[in-house]
């Protein structure tokens, strides 16, 4: 189709605007990557904008060589895996059970779930409850309270109700019980939905810093994002890495003077972000699908 002159200017204007948006999103990551790959003392002089000027992997070595960070990383990975499996399982089971229209008290149960989406006791009563259940300062505080999501349950429920009744009925005629129906019909047909919700839950676990910061005081239990949150306001490198042997070993290598707080910070934040940057291109369409199934009416 031929564009008129005014339409062409319009197109150019739109493309310029949208390109600016893309640059504003992508540039900070490139910048942080460049700083984290540059010798710290050199980057402090300024002038590193896009590519590292004095390339080094040293910042990453320091960060990955630090036992505290490695441990935090392990906690993050553990909670993401366990939390995602638990979250999907509990939510899927509830959605499937509630998808039976003949279920006695179904309306009451749906209401029971819905109310929790509208009103909550707030942070403090929630904390007191965690405390009473001895979940404070326990790894399970990351997993158990978030194992059920009312929001995801309703999304899942809507999806299951979209599965043709005839499919389920014919399976039941063949003598399949609810477990069989779930395993051989609902789960296989819901794979895209489960993938999308699983990703949402996994990202939530990966990114959560709040629970680690306020429900846990044992430093051995904090996840990477909470470590980053502590590090955000750190004033010098030693508060970050502690005065352990690690630092001495580094000092002997006389490289310590080359790292700066900023270069260490950037390396740490990149380490927390790189996994998401890597999987994002492959998973993006699932996310979008998840949002769409979840929220568009009619």
């Amino acid at each position, binding site marked *: 189709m031929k564009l008129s002159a005014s339409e062409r200017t319009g197109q150019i204007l739109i493309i310029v605007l949208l390109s600016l948006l893309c640059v504003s999103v992508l540039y900070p990551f490139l910048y942080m990557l460049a700083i984290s790959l540059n010798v710290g003392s050199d980057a402090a002089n300024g002038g590193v904008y896009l590519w590292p000027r004095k390339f080094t992997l040293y910042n990453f070595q320091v960060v990955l060589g630090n036992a505290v960070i490695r441990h935090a990383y392990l906690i993050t990975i553990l909670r993401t895996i366990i939390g995602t499996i638990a979250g999907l399982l509990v939510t899927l089971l509830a959605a499937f059970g509630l998808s039976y229209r003949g279920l006695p008290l179904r309306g009451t149960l749906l209401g029971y779930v819905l109310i929790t989406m509208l009103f909550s006791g707030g942070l*403090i009563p929630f904390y007191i409850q965690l405390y009473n259940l001895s979940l404070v300062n326990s790894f399970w505080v990351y997993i158990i*309270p978030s194992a*059920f999501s009312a929001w995801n349950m309703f999304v899942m429920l809507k999806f299951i109700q979209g599965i043709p009744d005839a499919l389920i009925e014919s399976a039941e005629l063949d003598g399949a019980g609810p477990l069989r129906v779930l395993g051989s019909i609902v789960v296989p047909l819901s794979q895209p939905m489960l993938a999308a919700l699983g990703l949402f839950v996994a990202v939530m676990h990966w990114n959560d810093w709040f629970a680690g910061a306020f429900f846990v005081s044992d430093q051995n239990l904090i996840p990477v994002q909470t470590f980053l949150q502590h590090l955000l306001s750190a004033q010098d490198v030693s508060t970050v890495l502690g005065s352990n042997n690690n630092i001495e070993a580094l000092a002997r290598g006389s490289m310590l003077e080359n790292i700066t707080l900023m270069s260490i910070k950037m390396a740490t934040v990149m380490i927390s972000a790189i996994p998401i940057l890597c999987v994002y291109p492959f998973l993006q369409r699932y996310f979008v699908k998840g949002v769409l199934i979840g929220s568009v009416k009619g």
Partner: protein
Amino acid sequence: MLAKVVKYRWQYLMIAPAVVLLFLFSYIPMAGIQVAFKDFHIGLTIWNSPWVGLENFSFLQDDQFWVVVRNTLWIALLKFIFGFPAPILLALLINEVRHTGFKRFVQSVSYLPHFFSWIVVAYILQSMLTLDGGLVNQFITNLGGQPIFFLGSTEWFRPMIVVSGLWKEIGWNTILYLAAITSIDPQLYEAARVEGAGRLAQMRHITFPGILPTVSIVLILSMPSLIAVGMDQIYPLMNPANQPVADVLDTYILRNGLQQGYFGTATAIGLLSSAISLLLVLFTNRISRKLNGEGLW
């Protein structure tokens, strides 16, 4: 009835974990709201701590509290004014792009920040805005200006929150609008073209009315989080220098409750803000039903 319950025993068993979890982590905390009217401290249970009437609500006479309320409302208002229409505009813009490849690229890139934590966003702000070597300040000094201490300033705090919030979520929030746009009947556009309507006229008379129902749903859904203006976003960026404008209800509750142990007061404040959120949802839903004949329920 009993026969029916037995018939559905598997289903009940499957729902049971969810029911138990909600009971433990939603309903018991709701009952825990009574702490707002009690003298509670760790060691007592919420049931055997003494009633103190409205004593915990004395924060209402505290000037600091009203500063916090003002900060909360300011940030909520600014985030709403800029944050609500922006994705609609962006979706309209993306929809106008003719080149499919570029369109996809813009969408993919603009969704990306949604998947990073607010902590990562705080680091991005720090790396861009810090005094020693921050990119923006380098730029300002190169132009001969005075460097600005963005992260510790009271004037720049609100713009920083609004812009970073936009940056993180604008793309993600376009998804629903873009989907709504694709579901508009193409014949409407054809008819409009025959009538001689230009792109702008089509946007105004077809696309925009076409996504209005979606707009109202998103509006209702955004209400509960309106007052909860992002502890996630604000807490990491708050410091003693910007606290006079950065302190919001959520951070105030956190400080008084979890950090200083004034559980009663913090619960009372939480109760107030939960109640306001609930009212906002009910109110918007009613308005939406009046205007569009369509609400969430």
